């Protein structure tokens, strides 16, 4: 088996400009005071072969509201679908008195969200794939948050970490990889986790590199586990050169199947020759495997479209309570 050093092992972690204000860890994976609530912490990277999802049951919060914050789009109607599905899933479990969504690009806006909510205690979970500009600057600004817990207009807001940095995302990635390539032997397969990549905020790529490190060091069995990006090295367009195996599984680390995951990246992979309409989504994902550049390429829908992200949202609420409310 070919073992490759995870890209993230070579790169320094970026500092969070917001971490001092919030006292929150830049990443759940590197925080000393962040206690993942998976059962029995592993002394080494977790055993992922079973792809067990480590969701813990959350105690009902009948006097609290949950506010899921998403990006949204004025161009793509599919962009906000996962957020509403995550809200529907959690609402169906009757754990919170209210479950609402709000957005940066769609309605309701974050500033309007408070008018949706009756309850005075609100858990805010960014349904974002990583920490970065939106979770550290835009959301706190728009919701007028000043720390992990803020009282604004008589309501108490608890600001949780974004879903993408939670350790339980690892199980979802492996679950998605196996779903898209059920017959591909991991020993002959490279798993690539891909994202946008940008120099604007290094944290936007860190969550991906953390996941790569976890999976590469686990017993998931993939011949190689790599990170690759649209606009940053290593480039996803070079997927075939990066991958030493005949099979390649690519999982987009985005919340929604927006413009990047089913329009831009398929072109970079060579699946499509030009950026197509949003309606091409199903075709892109249904034609697996794609025989391209001498390899079998399996392309997944965005990780955020996994309905079990609802569990990760609840995990972040649970972890917030452990970290910030345990002593109260």
């Amino acid at each position, binding site marked *: 088996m070919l073992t490759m050093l995870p890209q993230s092992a070579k790169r320094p972690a970026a500092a969070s400009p917001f971490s001092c204000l919030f006292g929150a860890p830049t990443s759940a994976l590197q925080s000393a005071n962040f206690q993942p609530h998976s059962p029995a912490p592993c002394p080494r990277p977790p055993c992922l072969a079973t792809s067990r999802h480590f969701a813990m049951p959350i105690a009902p919060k009948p006097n609290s509201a949950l506010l899921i914050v998403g990006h949204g*789009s*004025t*161009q*793509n*109607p599919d962009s906000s679908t996962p957020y*509403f599905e995550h809200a*529907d899933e959690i609402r169906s479990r009757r754990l919170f008195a209210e479950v*609402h969504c709000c957005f*940066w*690009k*769609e*309605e*309701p*806006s974050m*500033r*309007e*969200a408070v*008018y*949706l*909510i*009756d309850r005075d205690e609100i858990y805010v979970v960014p349904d974002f794939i990583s920490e970065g*500009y939106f979770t550290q*600057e*835009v959301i706190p*600004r728009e919701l007028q948050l000043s720390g992990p817990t803020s009282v604004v207009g008589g309501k108490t807001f608890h600001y949780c970490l974004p879903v993408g940095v939670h350790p339980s995302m690892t199980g979802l990635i492996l679950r998605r990889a196996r779903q898209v390539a059920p017959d591909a032997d991991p020993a002959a397969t490279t798993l690539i986790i891909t994202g946008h990549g940008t120099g*604007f905020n290094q944290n936007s790529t860190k969550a991906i590199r953390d996941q790569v490190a976890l999976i590469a060091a686990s017993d998931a069995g993939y011949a190689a586990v790599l990170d690759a990006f649209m606009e940053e090295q290593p480039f996803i367009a070079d997927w075939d050169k990066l991958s030493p195996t005949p099979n390649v599984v690519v999982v987009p680390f985005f919340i929604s199947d927006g413009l990047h995951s089913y329009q831009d990246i398929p072109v970079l992979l060579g699946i499509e020759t030009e950026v197509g309409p949003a309606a091409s989504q199903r075709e892109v994902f249904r034609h697996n495997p794609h025989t391209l550049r001498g390899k079998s390429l399996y392309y997944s829908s965005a990780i955020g479209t996994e309905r079990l992200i609802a569990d990760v949202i609840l995990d972040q609420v649970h972890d917030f309570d452990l970290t910030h409310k345990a002593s109260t």
Partner: protein
Amino acid sequence: MSNSEKLRHALASGIHRIGEIEIQTLASNAGFKLRHAADMTGGGGAAGAVLTIHTGPAAARDIASYAEDGSYRFLKAQCNLRRGWVMLLGSVADLRLALDQFYPACVGLWLAQRAGDLEVEHLRGKLQRQSGMYHRVRALSDAALQSMVPRICSPAIPCARRLLWQIDADTPLQPSAASRCSGIAEGIAADEAIPLLCREACNHFVAECLAAAKAAAAPQAD
């Protein structure tokens, strides 16, 4: 009293319209019925066709997201809500869920306004707090902003909310169809409708401001 209870009282007092939607309170505590107001009279469009019955609020998002021609309604107060449906809702909680999909937060905004709790953010304040690539919108002049409002906030297309904000506290919007929009459909009395309120410029407006700022800064072509 919760917003749901306030809504129930409002409906009992004669409120029956929000945007393009007629709200009917069913007898014997049987819940509520929503439908496009234009489907009540049977004139034109989808009228005459069999209305699709939806039980529960689940279909509201889909109905609200796409116009009859399939276009994406990213602003939900556009006056092109799809017709041809009836939605039956068994509780006021489900009614709120549905209305918050059709007209996001508009029930809560109206209830807050009635209670004197609605905070309005004027446009200059909204633009001043933008960051990242959007910081450029701060440089737009009042004149440029005034010219954008009638174009972007037209009550016909795309948005029929009542603008509560001004350029700043001392600078009202210049009179236009946008600034005069009541947030209530024509022919409906003010005490019969929940008005669609705009407490601050939306991010679509901010995005248009960014485009205008970029255009203003671009070199002029010969």
